[in-house]
């Protein structure tokens, strides 16, 4: 067992437990976008940041990848963490406002405005679908291509992948395209009043990031 301090509380977890798992076990909520209990952690969305170390010498790390260590001091909701997390959510909203998951996060963490220029991306590159495809399906039909701001998800040579088994897992796990938010108009990003959760409607979002051809969810190959 590993003993450490979580928000001032003395806690003990098994060796190898990550900070995120430990926090969730003790009922502390940490938001995530790229984490799934059935897949390997990736640390890309940066939402699960927590502060570790002595005050004054502390730093922010992703709790989904950081293993609990003896005597560690962890703060999941310090001012630093909260402010950083809020700005990251604001940045997500400015990038991909049509995701219900992100809209819900905004409501939950009191992000009520977006100061950045509004974009409308379909993908936040969390990599869940890629890990699902390679770890759960052993298929590796999709993956990241390019780097930096040009990075995106694609199939080999951007053609239909022979490896794809049409399982639909990539759509199922996607936090951006499956749970489409129907709330805000194009111009305003935040609705903060989201209750709806209707199935993905590709007739509204023609450009959805979908790698299935034909699409399992809508059962019609709308995507060229």
């Amino acid at each position: 067992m590993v003993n450490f301090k979580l928000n001032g509380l003395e806690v003990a977890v098994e060796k190898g437990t990550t900070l995120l798992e430990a926090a969730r076990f003790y009922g502390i909520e940490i938001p995530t976008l790229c984490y799934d209990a059935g897949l390997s952690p990736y640390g890309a969305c940066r939402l699960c940041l927590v502060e570790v170390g002595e005050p004054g010498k502390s730093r922010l790390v992703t709790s989904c990848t950081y293993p609990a260590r003896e005597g560690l001091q962890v703060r999941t909701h310090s001012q630093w963490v909260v402010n950083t997390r809020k700005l990251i959510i604001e940045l997500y909203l400015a990038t991909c406002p049509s995701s219900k998951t992100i809209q819900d996060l905004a409501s939950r963490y009191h992000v009520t405005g977006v100061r950045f220029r509004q974009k409308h991306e379909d993908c936040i590159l969390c990599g869940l679908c890629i890990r699902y495809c390679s770890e759960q399906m052993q298929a590796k039909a999709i993956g990241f291509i390019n780097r930096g701001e040009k990075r995106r998800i694609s199939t080999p040579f951007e053609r239909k992948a022979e490896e794809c088994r049409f399982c639909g897992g990539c759509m199922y796990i996607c936090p951006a395209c499956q749970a489409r938010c129907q709330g805000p108009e194009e111009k305003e990003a935040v609705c903060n009043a989201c209750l709806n959760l209707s199935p993905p409607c590709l007739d509204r979002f023609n450009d959805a990031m979908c790698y299935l051809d034909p699409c399992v969810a809508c059962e019609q190959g709308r995507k060229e």
Partner: protein
Amino acid sequence: MAKVAEELKNGQKETAGQNNVSLVALLQEVQERYNYLPEDVLRELAREKNLSLMEMYSVATFYKSFSLQPRGKHKVATCSGTACHVRGSEKVTEELSRVLGIKPGETSQDGAYSLETVNCLGACALAPLVVVDGEYHGNMTAARAAALIKEHLKKSRGLSAAELEQDVEKKAWEGCSCAILLAGNDKK
């Protein structure tokens, strides 16, 4: 196609023969041989070596030195390192792009020239730097770089100075009008 990959595999190079070879090294070898990474060769290679095609494509698009399109016979590169930047390399690149009629990262239609920007070639004392077919030319200005390339064009295309000017102007005009057309489309 099988033959090509086989050939590469049996190649004289030490890397391709090994089993546990790094994918980057393998792709470097393909590129050295074909001057770019042809899709069919990569597909064949993936099959033979039992590699994931996706991984191969990810690696090929991640690293800057790999190209999935054929590259020009003559490679023109401008250095865009910091030292070159503060001494005005951006203008040099723009001028070269105008003279060659292609943007950085592109290859001319006849496959003769490709233009690239390189992050730093480590010859900062010569900034700004232009490299033509591996030959370094230091202390460039937009005007001098243009003269250099025009000289090269003259030699390689066998044009006279006047013909060349015309050619460049035509290309530049085409580029311009394309841009105008595109801009028009955007508005629609």
